[in-house]
């Protein structure tokens, strides 16, 4: 450094002075933010009178972008209901959008923006486990901001390094895998192969299914992972069906499902297929042809047959028309309600305070309250009266355990009937009580 300075001062003085001037300007410009810090005022005021700001961090672009818009509708539905019923702490909730772009890196940047610049008290999202984990570990956990994901189902989130700021309103993949295995056995299938998307979601489903299926006496012939972007899945399908399984378990997204399901059928002697929730896509079936998969079963995290679920459906129909067969809408709705209730209970918009109140309002004991305008009004009245409340949501009872997970949930069984996806069964699962797991509770077909 000294040498460089020396040279410039001595050899090309005229030129050097100008260059130093430029450098100084550059340095000054870079210093602006730092200087401004000290000139600026103190920390952001956590005013009691401030409205509650909740952010959604949804995949509006990227691989899962199909889900972004319905997800946002679900969040808006809850926010509108609460606001029409008087808001939280007497103020309407403000909803802020962020785009995770289905990319961990962008999700992290966005979470940081939502927290620091938008000043939100809680984030709902992001969608995938691959994004949720870095967001929780590097942004919301250290910053102490509540994060509730509605769809990240990887078991790894249970043990995330999140300072207890990460929660989820969706049950782990294990539940769905268990029900898929039950359905397969009930249909009388002896052997099965699993074709799963090679990510946290597919892997979790694959494991849960395989464990349960073999425990129930079935045989797994193959477990084949696949990538999302492929020109052809011929070799994956071939490896999967090589052992002549009775049924193929497809745990994937529509993006790849479109391609491999078509190739599967075209290959001729295709086995029956059971679909995961990722493939619960009417668009995909319409494109492939409904008649091809007539009578095939699938599973999804779904609504229990409770009043709360009915309330949600009714509200959705009033607002937007028919409830689309998109997963996790109820979970989003529940997440917003939980945050609002906890904020009401804590009488604060401070993230930590909301977090502390979250389990109180979600778990027993307490007066059961549900979603919807009326539900909100009842809940606020109960809280004002100093009573405990226990939120029972559209997706289930949403009881949060010490890890921030829900262990009780409802898995629906759906079937392709005609040109529609119809729910035929709905089963409650309690992963905490292993021996009772998967016992059909509401065995009667719906619809």
């Amino acid at each position, binding site marked *: 450094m000294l040498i460089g300075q020396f040279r410039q001062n001595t050899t090309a003085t005229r030129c050097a002075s100008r260059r130093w001037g430029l450098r100084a300007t550059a340095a000054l410009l870079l210093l602006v933010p730092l200087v401004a810090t000290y000139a600026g005022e103190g920390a952001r005021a956590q005013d009691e009178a401030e409205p509650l700001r909740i952010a959604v961090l949804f995949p*509006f*672009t*990227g*691989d899962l*972008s*199909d889900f*972004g*818009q319905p997800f946002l509708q679900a969040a808006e539905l809850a926010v509108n209901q609460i606001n029409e019923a008087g808001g939280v702490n007497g103020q309407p909730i403000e909803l802020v959008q962020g785009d995770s772009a289905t990319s961990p890196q962008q999700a992290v940047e966005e979470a940081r923006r939502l927290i620091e610049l938008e000043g939100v008290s809680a984030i709902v999202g992001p969608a995938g486990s691959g994004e949720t984990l870095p967001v929780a570990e590097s942004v919301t956990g250290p910053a102490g901001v509540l994060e509730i994901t509605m769809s990240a189902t990887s078991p790894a989130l249970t043990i995330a390094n999140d300072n207890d700021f990460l929660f989820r309103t969706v049950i782990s993949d294990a539940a769905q895998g268990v029900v898929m295995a039950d359905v397969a056995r009930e249909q009388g299938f002896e052997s099965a192969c699993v074709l799963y998307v*090679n990510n946290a979601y597919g892997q979790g489903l694959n494991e849960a299914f395989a464990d349960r299926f073999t425990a129930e006496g079935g045989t797994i012939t193959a477990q*084949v*992972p*696949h*990538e999302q*972007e*492929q*020109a*052809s*899945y*011929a*070799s*994956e399908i*071939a*490896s999967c069906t*090589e052992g002549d399984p009775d049924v193929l378990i497809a745990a994937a997204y529509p*993006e790849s499902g*479109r*391609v491999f399901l*078509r190739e599967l*059928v*075209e*290959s*001729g002697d295709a086995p029956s297929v059971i679909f995961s929730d990722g493939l619960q896509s009417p668009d995909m079936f*319409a*494109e*492939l*042809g409904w008649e*091809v998969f007539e009578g095939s079963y699938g599973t999804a995290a779904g609504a229990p047959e409770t009043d709360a679920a009915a309330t949600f459906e009714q509200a959705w129909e009033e607002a937007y028309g028919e409830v689309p067969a998109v997963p996790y809408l109820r979970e989003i709705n529940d997440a917003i309600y939980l945050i609002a209730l906890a904020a009401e209970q804590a009488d604060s918009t401070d993230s930590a305070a909301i977090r502390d109140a979250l389990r109180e309002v979600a778990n027993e004991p307490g007066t059961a309250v549900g979603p919807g305008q009326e539900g909100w009004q009842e809940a606020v009245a109960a809280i004002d009266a100093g009573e405990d409340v226990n939120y029972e949501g559209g997706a289930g009872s949403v009881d949060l355990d010490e890890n921030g997970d829900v262990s009780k949930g409802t898995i629906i069984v759906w079937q392709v009937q005609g040109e529609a996806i119809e729910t035929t069964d709905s089963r409650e699962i309690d992963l905490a009580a292993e021996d009772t797991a998967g016992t059909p509770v509401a065995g009667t077909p719906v619809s």
Partner: protein
Amino acid sequence: MAQAVEKSVVEREVALARQRTTRWSQTLGPWVPWLLIGGFAAWSAVARTDQFVVGVIVGSLYGLAAVGLTLIYGIARVSHFAHGDVMMFAAYLAFFALTGAVVGSQTGDVVFPFHLGQLPGATEPIWRFSFGYGLVLAILIGATLAVPVLLAIDRFVYQPLLRRGSSTAILAVASLGVAISMRGVMLLIWGPTGRRYVGGIRTTVDIPGLPRIVADQFFIMLAAGVLATAAYVVLYRTRLGTAMRAMADNADLARASGIDIAATRRWTWVVGGGLTAAAGCLLALQSQLSPELGFILLLPIFASAILGGIGSPHGAFLGGLIVGVVGEVAVGLGVISPGYKMAVIFVMLIAVILLRPRGLLGAQS
């Protein structure tokens, strides 16, 4: 004394050098790769018919695109890292011509009022294909529209760089920039969701002794075959082809012998780009349209071109077939996970680069 010893070294070398011409390895050596490839092809055609057929179909498309790549490299002197994206871009243009769809919002497409799908009977399936004459027209239009785009890119990006005497590497970086921009444009206009020309399950054709083949795949193979033959005819039976090959051999010499360098360059982009675009459309027919697919295609296409020998069009086509078949069959054996398909292709690429850098049919430089 030492001098004498050294002298005998020289003389022994000289004797050996003259002997060496008659070694068996020199006569048999060139046939070894062909025996290996032929043996593998025969074995996989019998033992792994399913994967072999898929490999041939996908491979013929890799091959077509690799012919385009090898022409563009050999004549226009661009290491074209935007090649996969050009394929996808052309496929999307055909998609637009057929359906008129561009993404207007997050919920649905805005449909352009005039499109081929509106023509009477354009979507009525021909024979057992899943598509009608509309798609054939759309592919032609897609390929035709892609060519001027390529010519413009060459005119405004690659040529100025070449004129400035930029290195291969700079051109490759520029083509990477082009690839990223093209991918971005596709994402902007058509969104990230995968598309396809025609939905539904396609009709299959049963031929005794063969696996079920989707009728569309006959079309793909036929079209690939016709295009490859056409390319061969253009390159080896026309004045233009002679000029192109002369330019690939030695641009200065070609200029000296009165060949219009600029025009030949343009025609190279037309022929090479057209083949690439057609390969993209056919690939989209085989699987789907997706902006992300472009970059993924790059490795197999380059592997095909290098395997066949850069600068050798028929080598590139053959290379494509080999890459396609080996990739599919290798993961079809069940020994390695299908996720390693690209790894198999990568290993082939490295092996060729190391063992036979001029490729199977490439001229020794």
